[in-house]
């Protein structure tokens, strides 16, 4: 199953530092492949290095593509994370 969605980043820190690592952790909980696109660039959503090189700032629009058996659930959780402007509640603020 393949699910695609366009999502705007509202977190003031963009999708790097702590938010990126949380995103990667969530993605890695699922079996499905996660691809994140920004413009013409595409990176593996389970890779912190890939994600950080995207340099997605607040306001960037990303296209998420999740493919695999648990694609829908994975997409739901990733979307919820990206649409919240808080960080991982368990972690506290990034330094």
């Amino acid at each position, binding site marked *: 199953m393949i699910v695609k969605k366009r999502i705007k980043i509202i977190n003031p820190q963009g999708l*790097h*530092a702590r938010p990126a*690592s949380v995103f*990667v952790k969530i993605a*890695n909980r699922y079996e499905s492949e996660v691809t994140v696109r920004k413009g013409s660039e595409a*990176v*593996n959503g*389970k*890779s*912190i*290095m*890939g994600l*950080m*090189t995207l*340099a997605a700032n607040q306001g960037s629009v990303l296209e998420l593509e999740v493919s695999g058996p648990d694609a829908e659930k994975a997409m739901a959780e990733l979307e919820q994370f990206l649409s919240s402007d808080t960080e991982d509640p368990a972690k506290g603020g990034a*330094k």
Partner: protein
Amino acid sequence: MKVLKGIAASPGIVIGKAYVLDSEEMSIPQRSIPAAAIPKEITRFQDALTQTRAEIQTIRDKISKEISKEHGDIFNAHLMVLEDRAIIEEVMERIKKEKLNTEHIFSQVLKKYVQAFLKIDDEYLRERVSDINDVGRRVIRHLLGDQRSTLSEIKEKVIVIAYDLAPSDTAVMHRKNVIGFATDIGGRTSHTAIMAKSLEIPAVVGLENATRQIRMGDTVVVDGIQGILVVNPTPAELTKYKQDQARYVDFNKSLQRFKDLPCVTKDGRNIELAANIELPEETPAVLSHGADGIGLYRTEFLYMNRDDLPNEDEQFLAYKKVVTAMGQKPVVIRTFDLGGDKFLSHLEMPHEMNPFLGWRAIRFCLASPHIFKVQLRAILRASAFGKLRMMYPMISGVSEVKQANKLLEEAKTELRAKKTAFDENMEVGAMIEIPSAALTCDIIASEVDFFSIGTNDLIQYAVAVDRINERIAYLYEPAHPAVLRLLKTVIDAGHSKKLWVGICGEMSGDPIFTPVLVGLGMDEISTSPVMVPEIKKIVRSITYAEAQELAKYVLTLNTGVEVVNFLKLKYQQILKSSK
């Protein structure tokens, strides 16, 4: 035959076979691998990742427990880099496709990410580059099978040629079989130079590209007097160097007769001539060279080559060993001087643009009282076993001394409560190595019993020269009029408040400066053990009166070059007249 020019770091001449170490910027070998060996290559990669993961986790757990959870968290970031799917997949793909060895491919992939990160205009990401490099180094070290550990297994007498030698390298080095050093980088005061001097083996540093010009097994001559390295000398050159070597050995033997004589000028002024040490094992060398004591006992060695912090008992035993071995002779111990080029590798300090102006030494200790007080208690306990003195490094003004003394009082109170013995009158001093401290010595004097001038740092801060940078090394002038004036300021301020003043930098081991140091009124001179006999010879060949005249004259000169030329001339005259 090739002659490479460098910087003379430790005196002596030695001839032997080269043992070339990989540079720290690790020259990573590139090898083709047959298709059949690909699965083995991939297994090697996975094994290296597993080993690195275990290593990082161990460090993380120890640091979290012993320092703070936040420090430990840094290693979680390292683990994420290590476990990164994109990197792992790309490395495995490329091994299969390009049929090249893992370490080569892995370093190429990392390099690609580092370059991408550096291009992004985001400070946080750029800082992550050091995380990536750190993880990369660990993995590659595992892949290469930790070649550096072979240093401890050297079986024959060799001359080690390296890009640089870290304290962890010299610590494991087989003492008897390494007869000389030569390194690409470094200056007279770099760690390699200091270690070579304390191990009494000739060394040349700052050779720029010795590791690329010399092959394993080449015959090399290390001339630590001229600062040159001769590679594969002709038979005629070899004979000449053998003669030079014999002459040097004779000269050293002739100095031995000074060993048991007091360090006193011809007109009766006593100078306490002490030695600097880095490891407790160097204590016998201090005594065998006839030093009056230890003027600088560095304590950083306790932190090297390990993943945890040394506890109070361990420190106490190390300090006690030295104090006891020295009998009633004084030992000046310096509290942790971590930071800059010496900082604990495992604490993963935040990267600093200017580490020498950064968070180190007493600054770090005052901010980490839970670490500092452990050392203070250990030192106090050792003070019960001999004549121990203690000094704080990198003092910039009186407030730091007051704060440190307050912690010292707390440590004393804790020991008294436990009825643990220590010397209630242990002398406490300030190292004067920052110009702001030198210029306010009269204020600092009220808080301490002595000053010890650390010239290596004092000079670099006074003339704003990074002593490790070869390009500007010529500006690092111990004889700069500003440096001489600072020395005079500190000595005069100390004496007017009845304090004794010593010096423990590299400058104290250069015999041409001995007359001017004596003439300025220095009470104690501390140098590497190997230099003690020669310095003693100079002191015994001059009078305090003429040294004072000489110092007065030198202070009127305009440039460091004029000062050095004059002092060299004087030195030659002294040597001649003392024969």
